[in-house]
């Protein structure tokens, strides 16, 4: 069950990596920091609303409210990052953009550590829903929090899938990813599409951040090494699924979550990171373009 929950969070983050790669052909290293931002913004809002106090039972809508607020904040940050850091480099060599992305990542991490943002202390995310065990079978406990996390993630992925394959904007995104200049000639506003991609990716990362904070309420400080590792695993998920491929990222995320959790449970928990990266090597050797890299030709 942990595998499903964590896997769907990896999938949400992986989607952001994969969408940006699809449209701009570069790895947005600042993406995992948007995820961290999502978790910390959720914490800040929850505490601001007074849910941190012991004995308060937040109303059911609180979770939804915080989720939406975190998504909106991170969407705005994602838009700003793209507008200020990446758009001026649209015609520059790939490497410049890549290095800029690393710069943005470090910037976000260190700003997050400032006193008047999130500080350098770990904090406890208030619990927004009562964690109850819904069912038990064969030694597996189904927790409400896990189910809610997986459910929300799945819902968001369905919405995204619909957005990309069933709407005008989605068609424009697919066109840009297929061939940017031809899309521009056909009257697609490329800059707007790219901005939209960033906002979309960032909101998904924010949702993942919120759900992660719900599942693991002891939040590490914003620049902690464990966040970087989570981002890396999500990136691995995107690569395994076939980078640039939306459904591949979803599949990759769930796969990574399962491999990590099952490896930890049945082999040895000390080597959990090793399983993930071994799978990456394996996939790169056997199918360099990812599991779904060729099966679905359509790229976004």
């Amino acid at each position, binding site marked *: 069950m942990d595998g499903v929950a964590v896997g769907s969070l990896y999938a949400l983050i992986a989607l952001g990596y994969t969408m940006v790669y699809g449209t701009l052909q570069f790895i947005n290293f600042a993406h995992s920091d948007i995820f961290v931002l999502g978790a910390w913004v959720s914490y800040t809002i929850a505490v601001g609303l007074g849910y941190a106090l012991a004995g308060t039972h937040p109303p059911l809508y609180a979770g939804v409210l915080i989720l939406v607020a975190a998504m909106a904040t991170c969407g705005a940050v994602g838009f700003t990052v793209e507008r200020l850091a990446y758009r001026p480099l649209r015609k520059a060599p790939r490497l410049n953009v890549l290095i800029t992305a690393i710069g943005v990542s470090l910037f976000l991490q260190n700003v997050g550590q400032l006193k008047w943002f999130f500080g350098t202390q770990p904090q*406890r995310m208030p619990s927004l829903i009562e964690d109850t*065990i819904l069912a038990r079978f064969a030694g597996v406990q189904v927790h409400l929090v896990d189910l809610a996390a997986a459910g929300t993630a799945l819902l968001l992925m369905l919405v995204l899938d619909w957005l990309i394959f069933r709407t005008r904007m989605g068609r424009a995104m697919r066109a840009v990813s297929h061939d940017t200049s031809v899309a521009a000639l056909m009257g697609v506003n490329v800059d707007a599409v790219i901005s939209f991609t960033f906002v979309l990716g960032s909101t998904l990362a924010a949702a993942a951040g919120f759900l992660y904070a719900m599942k693991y309420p*002891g939040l590490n*400080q914003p620049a902690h*090494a*464990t966040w970087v590792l989570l981002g890396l695993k999500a990136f691995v998920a995107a690569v395994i699924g076939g980078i640039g491929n939306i459904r591949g990222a979803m599949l990759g995320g769930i796969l990574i979550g399962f491999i990590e959790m099952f490896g*930890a*449970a049945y082999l040895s*928990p000390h080597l959990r990171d090793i399983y993930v990266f071994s799978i990456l090597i394996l996939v790169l050797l056997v199918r360099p373009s990812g599991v779904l890299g060729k099966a679905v030709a359509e790229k976004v």
Partner: protein
Amino acid sequence: MRSNASLSRLGSSAAILFLAAGLAGCGGSAKSGGAAETPGTDPILIGHFGSMTGSEATFGQSTDNGIRLAIKEFNAAGGLKGKKVELKTYDDQGKGQEAGTAVTRLITSDKVVAVLGEVASSLSIAGGRVAQQYGVPMISPSSTNPQVTEVGDMVFRVCFLDPFQGWVAAKFARENLKAEKAAILYDQAQAYSKGLMDAFDKAFKEMGGTITTVQAYTGGDQDFSAQLTTIRQTNPEVIFVPGYYTDAGNVSIQVRKLGLTAPLLGGDGWDSVKLAEIGGSSIEGSYFTNHYSHQNPAPQVQNFVSTYKADYGQTPDGLAALGYDAARLLFDAMGRAPALDGKSLAAAIAATKDFAGVTGTISIDAQRNAKKAAVVLEMKNGVPAYVTTIEPPQ
């Protein structure tokens, strides 16, 4: 700004040079050392390196507060023969490589006469190597791993050691909690946690108990469900978690989530207000061994607690008390030392006998360690409450 800073640094290094020249001139023979002969306004600089930020941030901050309080009181009482003591603190962010850099900077560019720090044993070892190399005495207030003072004859500590602390935890589990079966979950990335785990494992078995399983995690991990599921299957009566407070808080949440009811038992790495903040209701009823309890009614402890509260607005934890003791012990040694060079100062620290600290009576032994009693605290309503004191075996 820039020129100002470099000017003042130039000034202070010139002062140190002058001081060193004075000392060299007098040699070791004269009792009225250079320090006493030049009662100038230049303060004596001591250094502190600690984790002021990061997952163990309260460790560094508490220690720093304790040291600063000791300095304030020492200067108010006249300082060292009329000279004030000043503190220079560098943040090592809880990282080994930063700890080495911080100590190097304190010694080579700030020219401190002694270094205080760290809390985490692995960082004290990293910093201690540098202090040893430059021949500047270092006192660790609260690193409990045996290897810390094995670095060399310049490294001291004012706290007890992990073999003792692990023994105390085992004794408490066996005799007070009447536990037959214990499970262990330790941080494989920390020398401190590993050392405590080994000591507990050995002592608990010697006392006739059974260790059902030993599981490991890496500091900063968020998911312990695999390890805890294994632990649950072995059905222990107590779970020993010798990690730091952030991880211990996270572990406690997941322990209760899995439906385990056995109390957790930890070491002095749990000592932080953050433990209750992160662990919340999950950490209630768990125990940890520590250096001191703020509920100790001894007048010296109560004086310290009330002045600390007045200055910082919070109850001092064990690390603040140890920082305070380490600084006061250093001043005591500075008063007895004929001069403030590394060798004389180290000799004076090594000669400390029956120093009355707030964390107990401190005598430095031949291995530059302190032999002291430990207390066991229980988390009650978010506050560590005093349970019992356990004396070292004779």
